[in-house]
């Protein structure tokens, strides 16, 4: 098994929101960055941007009392049928990359579809495939 981790280089981010729009288009079929599973935190000063997105650490899957989060095609996904909307995943995410989004039933997180990676105009986004072993956890492999 392996996970696919989409990685952002904050220094290359120019804040255009194309990743957010792509995510909302591909995963929700709408033009609305507020529904995106990738989020650009903008610091309007010289500091620039910080991109927040799930690193597929799997903590949410471990903590979910309904076992509604599982690894599918390299990304942890929330099963809408099994999710009881308890919000524990949102609370336990160590990097605050799972959100309640307006007018979306379940919490939203990155499922590693990688659509944003190819649309990013500055190549600030890339992805890594990481081999996954139950005992030793995540082990880096490009």
């Amino acid at each position: 098994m392996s996970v696919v981790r989409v990685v952002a280089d904050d220094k290359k981010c120019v804040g255009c929101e194309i990743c957010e729009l792509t995510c909302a288009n591909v995963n929700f079929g709408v033009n609305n960055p507020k529904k995106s599973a990738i989020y650009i935190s903008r610091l309007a000063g010289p500091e620039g941007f910080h991109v927040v997105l799930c690193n597929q650490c799997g903590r949410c899957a471990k903590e979910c009392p309904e076992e509604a989060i599982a690894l599918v095609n390299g990304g942890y996904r929330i099963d809408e049928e099994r999710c009881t909307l308890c919000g524990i995943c949102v609370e336990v995410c160590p990097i605050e990359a799972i959100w309640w989004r307006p007018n979306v039933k379940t919490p939203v997180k990155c499922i590693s579809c990688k659509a944003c990676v190819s649309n990013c105009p500055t190549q600030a986004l890339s992805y890594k495939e990481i081999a996954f072993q139950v005992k030793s956890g995540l082990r880096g492999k490009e």
Partner: protein
Amino acid sequence: MKGWMGKILRVDFGEERIREEDLPEQLARNYIGGNGFAARILWDEVPKGVDPLGPENKLIFATGPLNGTLWPTSGRFKIAAKSPLSNGWGEGNAGGHFAPEIKYCGFDAIIFEGAAKYPVYLHLSDDGAEIRNAKHLWGKDSWETHESLRKELKNQGLHTAVIGQAGEKLVRFAAVMVDKYATAARSGLGAVMGSKKLKAVVACGSKDVLIHNPGKFYEFSVSAQRRLLTHQFSESLINYGTPLLVSIMSDIGRFPTKNCQQGSFPYADEISGELLAKKYRVREESCFACPLRCKKYHVINDGRWKTDGGLGLEYESLHALGSLLWNRDVESIIYANALCNKYGVDTDDIGGVMGFAMELWEKGILTAKDTGEIDLSWGNPDVVVELVHEICRRKGFGDILAEGTHRVAERLGGEARRYEMTVKGLDIPGQDGRGQKSMGLSHVTSNRGADHLTSAEFLSEVGFPEAINERFEHRAQELYGRSILPEGADRLNPKFKPLMVLDSEHMAAVADSLVVCKFSTHWPPAIYFEDAARALYYATGIKYTEKELRLIGERIFVLERAFNLREGFSAKDDRLPDRFTKEPSPGGASKGHVVELDEMLVEYYRLRSLDQRGYPTVEKMKELSLEDVAADLGIDG
């Protein structure tokens, strides 16, 4: 409705009432959005002769059907009102990330009417709109206002359109500042906002922009994004932003210098895009949904002009605060530009009025007695910065200059009028028409007054034959039975320029209604009528054709002109200052050239079906379905 949100918000400060109205389907279909909406609404609702700074004037914020989507450069919106500078059609256009939020809050456009009794701001969210007290914000600059609002509303995702002190003080060329650094600069719309005591509009919403065919729209948007990003002309814009133009324009004699006395600046290399990138740039930024990141962030770390310069030092400001004033101190330009953004003024007009005053000083028309002992000799960076403060705060001599070049010239009368570099009350922006004939014409035909972006005819600048051939060959054959090349690509040859300006004006009117950036439709020339028609079809489900879009662009342009005609404008206002038509460019690559305005204007009037008074013919108005407008203007067969 798809693409559009289907709602117009009407905010009446006099009655302290907010109303939501359905967006009329015919308005949407026939005018698209942005400028189209604004032109129609101002025509219908702002009668002739109202005071631009009085409560009868209306201020309009308008988006279009592509805003808030993945379509490239869809982060722009239009602001329009009767202009306190020109007393005619006024418009500004800004990027940043504010425009999509208007739609995410559920609206296509906002109409502001009347004037508030005390300072207010408009709060937009998913829950609707609310007028709130802004007394605590009055007196703050635009950056402080933006930061204060984000802080007190505890929302870092909030986007803002605000005025600084210049708008509050009704400086006639005050701007509306969007997300701190993007500027709806021209036409004095910040003063209109100030006259309504509207300090800010803030928006943060989460409604979807619904799309007719989401799959096709996504695919087509992604391919358009890629086409724009990889266009052969995009690279230099990506690398340097608009400041890349400084050296090039000075080299071709198109860079207004010393109040437009000349078209090249011997110190251009000292204020160039390359230099800015090397010494002062700390990062880059894009507006919403734009792949080109043309905005560069500048910081000066030490020295007397130490400053956090922010984003948005554009070519126009390097010209207006630099060469136009013979100012070669680049750090003072970065500093003064940041000040202009904080106070909220158009750099073109504030530079214009300073250049005008400096020339009057040179000619002995203004003396120390008039200026309050300020020495207006060319090129003193301290004076440039001092004047920015004085004008924006309306202090001393600055209070006079805050009325703008045209009004100062009128007041002084006599010889001073020879040095007034304006058209319809707006200062000539960063193009010396003697170095690019189509720009000389564009300054005159633009409905908002001297302006380069109403036509955005940039293709003949340094001659891009392929792009010119692609866009205009068909039209040249149709109209003249001749090839557009080579004359069309020769910036110094007036031949074909009326056609190129006219067609560019129509595409620009469409861009201003979608609302998208001309750095996608005109430069680089990546998106044209066909693409816009297809994107609109996928977004709205309405089968626009290229032909129909050309007609809509023309309709919008002519309706804006009609607004001016109703206010008393006519052919006599379609004039350039004599400097451009009678004084040959004194040196550089355009030496000896003047703008052959009369020759070009005769042909332009013919192509636009204008009579000698500058009025469109009744046939043209019928073709554009503007019969009601024609009747009001007294145009009949």
